Structures are given as structure tokens and as C-alpha cells.
């Protein structure tokens, strides 16, 4: 019984953390936010060199062949640093190919993804907040896709898109290559400028089915939920640190504001809610890896719980900073916006709580 991280895991986490502290300070984050996307690929390649793009890719394809828990640790550090880039779409696409692709597809894409040379993302959500495979409207008929996807991470930059759609019998996954006929990609105006989202409309777009797509669907989705949860934890951790630090430096009424009990209690409440949630994120990732029958429900729970927590922490942290917290120049809104992404992407918290209730048979 050892509910903790291994030496290797601590090393991976620490390596990514130190890299980001040095190579991705908020000045670079802002540069990328205000650009059109090119510098993102540069950062993504740098992260790929450290293995970030191939954590769960099999070694034979150039990856680290590690598990979702390891990837979640990476996600946490990326969240802590508000790292711009295509991580979430790429991570979900990797799960799709590893668990649902055949040898040919895997050979074609995984090595290039792991090295950062190729970018693959996932298209899942549709209009009216729809993320449930049973209700998706995007169809695949004779391996031609028709429908409109919203909230697709980095579609404009992607070399391929893995699409959740339904054929005559059931939901599954298809892969569409860049510049495929009948694909119309439009950038969306987004609040989180570190993680761009696009809409993708398919009109008789030729696509290749993932042979194991139907079975992999739930796994891809669950992995996404857990990684968003891990991102939320990392960002929340960062915000609590910023709030504590500010409370110890900002003086008003003759003392640092952290000496006021109301401020202390706000911070204590955040810490008391944040600290226990780490074990929940770890367990969910561990379940995905090793206790599969608990995976789907834990993924839903983690997403809802962490999204709400991140939401609350970014709000309280901003309030605690007073006026300066509301400025563009101050970095805090970077995380506030990322909390907006985390609460929205893959569906909102109450949807996942309802799913968890159903999965429990209530």
C-alpha cells in the first residue's frame, strides 16, 4: 500500500516544472496569447523534447510508455504555469490512437506526435452543450463525415483531427487529415487565449475509422476529464500561492493584509478545500490506469469537483488582490481564464455530476 508518487514520477514532474519556470514565464505566455499561433508550436516542440507529447505513447513509437497518472502530473505543472498550447487535444488524441487505432494508424501518427512534429487533436463537443456520444449529431456515412463540431482545440494548427461521430449502428472515432475536402475550420473567439478553440464543419469529409474507436470513446473522454481536473489542480495551487504571497506583502491599515482574520480565513478555506483534492485527482488517474471499472465515474467526479474548485479559487484570489487583480497587466486573469476553459471544456460540472449519479444507479 503506497499511495504516493514514485521517484520517476517526482522526477518527471519536477523536470517539467523547472523547465516551465525557466522557459515559460508569464511574459512568454502573454507573447503567445497575443500571437496567431506560430510560437505555440515552438513551445510544444520544446516540451516534446522533454517527452510531454509522448508520455503515454508506447516506447516502440518513441514515447515514454507511461500511464495517465504520469500524464496528469505533467498536466498539473502545465496548469500551474498557465502553459499555452495544444496539450489537452493532443493528449486525448494520443489515447484515441493508442487504444483505438490499428498498427497502421499508430505507426503513421504516434512517432510524429511524440516528437512534436505532428499535431493531432480531437473534435467532440457540439452545439447546445452536447458531449454525450449517444446524442452526437455528427454522422459518418460510408466514412464521410457530416456535422459541426464546436470547441475543437487547435484545429487550425492540427495535422489531423480525431472526430467523435456516429455511424448507422453506434458512436465511434474517425480521423480526418489536414486540408481534407469538405472541412471548414473557423477560429472561435475564446476567453482562455492559452488554449485556442475552433469550430469545424464537415460536409461529406472523407475520414478513416479507428477500428477500436467505439471501445476507445469512453477512455478518450475519461482521460480528457481527468487531465482537465489535473490542470485545474495545478492552476489552483498557483493561485493559492499568489494569494498567500500577496497577503504577506500588501499592506493596508498599518499591517500586511494577511494579518486580518477575514483574509486568513479565506486563505485557510481555500487551502482546506484544495489540499485534499490532490488525492482525488491521483486516484482518478490511477483508476484509469489500473482500476478500470471505477474509471468513468471517478473521471466525471474529478472534472466536476476540480472545475468548481478552480472557479472558486480564481474568484477568491482575484478578490483578495483588490483592484490590481482586475487589471490586464497583472497575471492573475491568465488563470481565471484557464478556469473558464476548465469549467466549460468537455461539459459543465452539473452535467458530470448527473452522469455520476446515473452511473451509481441512483
Amino acid at each position, binding site marked *: 500500500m503506497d*499511495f504516493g508518487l514514485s521517484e520517476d514520477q517526482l522526477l518527471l514532474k519536477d523536470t517539467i516544472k523547472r523547465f516551465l519556470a525557466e522557459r515559460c514565464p508569464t511574459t512568454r505566455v502573454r507573447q503567445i496569447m497575443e500571437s496567431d499561433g506560430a510560437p505555440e508550436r515552438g513551445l510544444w516542440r520544446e516540451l516534446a523534447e522533454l517527452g510531454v507529447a509522448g508520455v503515454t505513447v508506447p516506447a516502440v513509437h518513441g514515447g515514454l510508455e507511461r500511464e495517465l497518472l504520469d500524464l496528469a502530473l505533467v498536466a498539473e505543472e502545465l496548469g500551474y504555469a498557465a502553459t499555452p498550447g495544444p496539450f489537452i487535444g493532443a493528449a486525448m488524441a494520443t489515447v484515441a490512437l493508442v487504444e483505438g487505432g490499428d498498427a497502421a494508424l499508430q505507426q503513421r501518427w504516434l512517432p510524429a506526435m511524440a516528437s512534436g512534429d505532428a499535431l493531432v487533436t480531437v473534435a467532440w463537443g457540439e452545439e447546445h452543450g452536447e458531449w454525450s456520444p449517444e446524442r452526437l449529431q455528427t454522422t459518418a456515412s460510408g466514412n464521410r463525415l457530416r456535422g459541426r463540431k464546436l470547441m475543437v482545440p487547435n484545429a487550425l494548427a492540427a495535422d489531423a483531427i480525431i472526430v467523435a461521430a456516429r455511424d448507422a449502428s453506434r458512436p465511434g472515432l474517425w480521423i480526418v487529415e489536414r486540408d481534407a475536402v469538405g472541412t471548414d475550420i473557423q477560429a472561435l473567439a475564446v476567453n482562455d487565449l492559452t488554449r485556442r478553440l475552433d469550430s469545424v464543419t464537415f460536409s461529406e469529409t472523407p475520414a478513416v475509422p479507428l477500428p477500436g474507436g467505439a471501445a476507445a470513446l469512453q477512455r478518450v473522454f475519461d482521460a480528457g476529464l481527468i487531465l482537465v481536473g489535473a490542470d485545474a489542480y495545478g492552476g489552483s495551487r498557483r493561485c493559492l500561492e499568489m494569494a498567500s504571497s500577496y497577503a504577506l506583502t500588501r499592506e493596508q491599515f498599518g499591517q500586511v493584509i494577511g494579518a486580518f482574520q477575514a483574509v486568513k480565513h479565506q486563505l485557510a478555506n481555500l487551502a482546506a478545500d484544495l489540499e485534499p483534492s490532490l488525492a482525488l485527482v491521483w486516484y482518478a488517474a490511477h483508476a484509469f490506469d489500473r482500476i478500470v471499472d471505477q474509471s468513468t465515474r471517478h473521471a466525471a467526479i474529478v472534472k466536476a469537483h476540480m472545475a468548481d474548485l478552480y472557479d472558486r479559487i480564481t474568484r477568491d484570489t482575484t478578490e483578495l488582490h483588490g483592484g490590481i487583480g482586475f487589471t490586464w497587466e497583472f497575471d492573475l486573469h491568465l488563470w481565471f481564464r484557464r478556469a473558464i476553459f476548465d469549467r466549460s471544456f468537455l461539459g459543465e460540472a452539473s452535467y458530470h455530476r448527473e452522469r*455520476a449519479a446515473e452511473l451509481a444507479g441512483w
Partner: protein
Amino acid sequence: MDLSYSTEYERFRAEVRAFLEEHWTEADRNSSPPPDGAAALMGAVVRSDDRATAFRLKAIERGYLYRHIPKTYGGGEQPYDPLKSTIIAEEFRRAKAPGEVFGQGPSMLAPTLVEHGTEAQKQFFIRDTLLGTLRWCQGYSEPGSGSDLASLRTRAELDGDFWVVNGQKIWTSNAIDADWMFALVRTEPEAPKHDGISYLLIDMKTPGLEVRPLRQMTGESDFSEVFLDNVRVPKQNLVGPRGKGWIVSRSTLKHERALIGGSFLTRRTFDGVVMMAQAAQLRGQPAIKHPHIRQRLVELESRLLASEYTGYRLLTMQARGEEQGLAGMVMKLFTTQLGYDVSQTAMNVLGDRGALARGDLNTPDMGMFSYAYMWALGVLIAGGTANIQRNIIAERGLGMPRDAASKR
């Protein structure tokens, strides 16, 4: 990350189970009526009858109970192994077998004596305390000294070979049934606040000591006020040096917080609320079908899982010899708030029937949840109020400075 126990530990679990099957049977379990009151609500097996005592002696001898107390004082004395302690606790719970006696004597006083007591005190008190045949109450809080415990005013003055004690204690749990009290008293009135306190062991039968039950919100009297009027206490009953009582007491307060901050009884309550919500009708359908109840239950379950998994995380940190830090510091606040919120959700599930009290047959739960709801409020206050917990977390966990204006 591995939730399974190694072969060594699985073998240990099998040994513990075999011991329990042999020494605590169905007949033993049924040989006494189920308990009542606060301890029972906490899920403790509260028996101290002869059968339970005989079993405990065997369990201690096998090293299953009181592993942290030397054998010479009646303990199990085993090498530190939090995984084994966890396995023992799980298996004893499963078998509903008497574990360590529930109360402040075994959990707080005994370890304090081991650390600070004289040989005579250890020999005289510890063994019977561990078996529950010598019962203790804690004489700490006073009407004027609750959160600010160190401001306490009960005085003890040395008169020859006796400390003469005058004052009043309040919120003394189980004082009515207690044989002895471990108390904090002021012996050095000229010294700075924390340096003027001594830790004294007082026989509850001493002339001048009066116990007055204190009726709590739920209707019973699990607590008392204790009035001390020239109570003469032999000077050998001082634990640790005079004036050093605050330091002596610190270890016991840490134990008390650990005692209250566990999550397994919250799990039982939560599971009970779910079952009730599935069975009870609320305006035409089972309560659990109502969206607001479903949402709330999942929210609560998320926090409960976070609490349980943090328990694994803390256990691992203990086993690895790592500092628990913030993770350990927040658990009392986190779990007591969760416990209250779970009880409150039970009230929502009950709808209007939350107005009915214990024993009413018009409720799906015999009125137990409204009773638990009130108790949950008490638990938020006991052993360090939620606001005190927040101060501690902010100051010791996050580095916030103490309030300059207050006299700590």
C-alpha cells in the same frame, strides 16, 4: 502508486482475521445490547465489560492494540508500522470487535504519561486506563477560557504535600462516569500566560469536587461542569515540571484533533443518506430522483472520496517518514465541515420530516438524522472550533502573521 498490500501485509491481515475469528465470535458480539449516545454515533465499540476486557488483554498481548505503549505499562509495544495499525483497525471494525477503548484516557492521557509521567504514575494509571476500567475526563476548558485555553484561571497552590485547587471546568466530557480527571491549572500566576500552567491528575472522588451535568443541544448530558472548591491533590499527581503543563498538554491536543478528523464514520453516514434517499418518497418519487438532491449527493461524495484518498496519502507519508504538512493540518476542518454538510443534506432528503425527532415513526430514519444534524454542529466546535482551525492553517500552514492586537 499501488493500493494493494504486499504479501507480507496480506499475511498479517490474514493473521489478524484468524485471531478475531477465534477470539471474538458471534456470541461475543451479541452478548451485550448495542450502545447509545455520542460514542456509538462515532461507530465505536464502547464495551468495557468482562468479556470485552478479556478479549482486549489477548489482543494487547498479540500486539494488536496500544502498539505505541510499552508492554510494561500494559501496552502492545510494537515497532512503528502505520500500515499494520491500519489493517488492525479495519479488521477489528469489520469483526465489530472491541478495539482500543474509546475515550480521552487511552487516546490522550496514556501517551502523555508515557512521555512525561513519573514511573509511579505510569505504573499506577496506564494499564487500567487502557482496559477502560479506569475512566478519565479532561479538565481543560473553562467558562472564560475556551478557544483561548491558555488564559485559564483555575488555581492550584502548594500547601505542604498537596496542591489545593480552586476553580471551574466546563465541557468536561463524561465527567459523571469518570474516575479521574487530567486537568490544566494555573500554578504560577506571576509567570507569562503559557508558562504558568501545570498538568495535574485529580481523583474525581476528592472532597470539594462537584460534577454538574451540562445539558447540550441534543437534550442529553454528555458533558459536565466541574467545580473545584479547595480540592486537595497529592503533589505526586503533577505530571511534568510545574509551570510546564502547556507543553505537556500539547501532545494530547494533537491526538484529540486526530481523533475527531477521521472519515470512516462520515462514509457510513453518507451511505446511510444515499440509502434513505433511495427508499424515501418525496412528492411522488424517491428523494434521490430529485435533481438538486442528486447533484448535492455527488458533490458530497466527491469531498468524501477526497477525504478517504487523502487518508491513504497521509498513511503513505507516515509510512515513508515524510512530514504531513498542510495535508494533515486541514483534515479536521475538511472532514467536520463535510460531516455537517452530509447531515444537512439528510435533512433535505427528509423534507418536512426533518422537523420530527428521534424515535418518531413517521420518519424513514427513526429521527436519527436530525439528531446527527445537531451533533454535527457540536463536532465542528469540539476540539478546536472551525475558526481556530482556520487560524492555525493560515498561520502555521500558509505563513500568515499572528494578529498583532491580540495577546496570544
